[in-house]
């Protein structure tokens, strides 16, 4: 999934795989400030449309580690077939040199009958967004005004299981980690290390 590299003429192997800070700084903040967003500029704004997570395929931007879209903060995130429930406290998603810039909230998706699913949402919002940079350009260009305090950027992914395509953060088979067997071999190498000095 997530082969949107064509849009920016990147060779194979590139994925939209933003970290939290990049999301806040390069996408959320720029969107709120109505500044042009460099590629990919096609993170859709789904507003508050209550899509079920499995319906995002044609609507949200597919990244290497989840689906991405802009939305608005709402009190209750209820969809056709379920609802999102916050998990724990918000954490700081991005911080400048001295101040926090963005916050990150975790939510889990439950089906209507109260069964927890593997779907997880990271909801990013700006903190202390200075209105000076936001209101002016949006007014002057006549673009629909977005309340930056309500604007959020969502990353939705399915925890495990299912096809590899839909699962996020599931790249251990790509060789960036050692397999169990590799670890065994690595430890075997230690045998050499032990035996040599005593020789």
């Amino acid at each position: 999934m997530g082969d949107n590299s064509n849009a920016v003429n990147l060779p194979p192997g590139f994925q939209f795989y933003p970290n939290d800070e990049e999301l806040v700084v390069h996408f959320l903040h720029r969107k709120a400030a109505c500044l042009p967003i460099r590629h990919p500029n096609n993170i859709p704004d789904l507003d508050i449309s209550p899509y079920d997570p499995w319906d995002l395929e044609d609507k949200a931007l597919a990244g290497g580690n989840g689906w991405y879209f802009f939305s608005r903060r709402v009190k209750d995130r209820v969809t056709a077939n379920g609802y999102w429930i916050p998990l724990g406290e918000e954490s700081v998603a991005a911080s400048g040199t001295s101040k926090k810039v963005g916050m990150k909230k975790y939510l889990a998706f439950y089906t209507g009958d109260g069964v927890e699913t593997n779907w997880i949402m990271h909801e990013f919002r700006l903190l202390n967004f200075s209105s000076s940079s936001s209101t002016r350009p949006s007014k002057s260009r006549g673009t629909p005004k977005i309340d930056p305090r309500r604007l959020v950027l969502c990353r939705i992914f399915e925890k495990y299981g299912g096809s590899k395509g839909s699962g996020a953060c599931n790249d251990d088979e790509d060789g960036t980690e050692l397999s169990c067997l590799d670890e065994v071999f690595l430890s075997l190498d230690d045998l050499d290390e032990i035996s040599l000095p005593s020789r």
Partner: protein
Amino acid sequence: MSLSVNGQSQVPPGFRFHPTEEELLHYYLKKKVAYEKIDLDVIRDVDLNKLEPWDIQERCKIGSTPQNDWYFFSHKDKKYPTGTRTNRATTAGFWKATGRDKVIYSNFKRIGMRKTLVFYRGRAPHGQKSDWIMHEYRLDDNTADTNVSNSIGEATQEDGWVVCRVFKKKNHHKTNDSPNNSSKTTQMLNSSSDGALDQILQYMGRSCKQESETVNNVTNMRFLRPNYDTINGFMQLPALESPTLPSYSNECNHLDQEMCSSQDCYQPIHVITDTTQSNPGYHNETDLNDWGTLDRLVASHLNVQAETTKQLACLNVPTLPYGTSTQEVDDDLHFPQLRSSSTRLYYTSQDYSSEIDLWNFTRSSSSSSDPLYK
């Protein structure tokens, strides 16, 4: 077009170069050996003998985004003109292969091989192991199944180009570097104690960092449990519902299958103990030698753990059994053989079954850790 034009990276923010093994082999390496141009020159040529691992990150940077792994092409340089061994020494150390090569498939076809190497500082054989790992990919050398890999062509096996991925190992457990360097258990305990939800979610499905200490201890202990009286001890480790380990049963009842594909959930050396023992082919010349060393190694692992693990109550295995077989050998006399034999160990057929067991085991054991994600 190259990666950066007028100082500005051509890779937009948020994009990572994270190729699959198939992309590395079928797109990048194939183009390389065919002298085709690759967009952006994402993967650079590197003289492995002149580049230390810690310089690779700067040299192989892609875009401005932080990276956990780095890629380059390297031309294999033979150590001796007549031999087939590759020289992978740098000024500060050398890359040493570990384990056996892994076959890379694409659509059920063999397309290449992956070799895993570890960087050692110093000179062989006295190098000091580091956390730098390299995966070296080569196109299939057309060995057994020529008809399968025809498409790759014969030229590639003559050509020494490989594509490499370098990364730093996570969750290291350098038990042997110093006696006080506590084992992985402690490191995992530490990492789980700062277990912010953020971290948990971030690493979810990628590593076992988020494991709770209970599960870690359970894992380690089960591997520590000696089973010398069985033919293949590893395969007959106490079952999850073993009555001698009542504390596990709760953990294991609600295991769910697909938690994380774990990487580091155990003390792997103990598995080898069993492998060695279970392989009749090595009884004659190597078994006795191995036992002495393994015993000491196991004992040292156990000692470290005994000091660092709080939940010793669960450890119903006294240290006593580890001494039992040492009396048979005068181990110090046989180290040269041990060295060579430990290499050959990799190729035994037993490894395979162990591997499968490891996966099954770690899959199931690493689950129940996080109550949020049952």
